[in-house]
């Protein structure tokens, strides 16, 4: 029943105050698969940004949205899936501002793309909402 590749599954509410816990959990999951400090920081930052986007854009700062994170240790990669129950995302809207056009905001998607090896929305899951997946390759 328990997928041996699943490192952890966690559910939490769409509150900024929960991000600290999320980062702690991600940091530990990274340590468990032997990521170095730099890669761990990258992973933690990317997952934090993806969750922020769900809190801010998916749930529009409503603190009672549900977010689920699944971290799997696949051969060669750490896979992080974030699932929300917000309205379906228009994936064409999901991009950061031009970095040269300096203004507050519009950096999260760029950071995720720079920090992770793969990222993007998967097929909308049954039951609605969105499923966002990120991968970090594990170099031996």
């Amino acid at each position, binding site marked *: 029943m328990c997928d041996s590749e699943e490192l952890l599954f966690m559910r939490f509410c769409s509150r*900024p105050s929960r991000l600290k816990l999320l*980062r702690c959990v991600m940091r530990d999951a990274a340590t468990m698969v032997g990521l170095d400090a730099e890669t761990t*920081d990258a992973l933690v*930052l990317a997952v934090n940004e993806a969750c922020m986007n769900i809190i801010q854009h998916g749930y529009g700062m409503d603190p009672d949205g549900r977010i689920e994170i699944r971290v799997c240790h696949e051969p060669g990669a750490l896979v992080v899936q974030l699932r929300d129950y917000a309205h379906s995302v228009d994936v064409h809207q999901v991009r950061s501002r031009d970095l*040269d056009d*300096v203004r507050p*905001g519009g*950096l999260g998607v760029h*950071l995720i793309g*720079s920090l992770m090896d793969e990222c993007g929305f998967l097929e909308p899951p049954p039951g609605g909402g969105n499923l966002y997946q990120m991968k970090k390759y594990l170099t031996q």
Partner: protein
Amino acid sequence: MSFPVEKRQGFLVVMLAGEVDLSRSPEARKVIMKALKKMHSVMVDMSRVEYIDSSGVASLVEGFQYARSNNLEFALAGVSEAAMNVLRLARLDQVFPIYASLEARLEAGA
């Protein structure tokens, strides 16, 4: 828990610290904007920032822009490695004036 502000020569120095994430960046933004709205130049001491996310960075960008349109100085000082990594990824290390330390800017004078 707000972030402390100190007057140092012609500057108001905002001392960010710890994890400047979505739960703390509104506070960072408030402190920075309040200092600037007194028509004061602002330095942000970032030596004790352990983590900053894009919302924390947005607070800095907002301060930077407000300062520029009001002819005030806005600079970062002693940026921690963790924060510098994020600024670099956002290519803002080329945008903000960044000093090695508060002293480095203060010694340079007006």
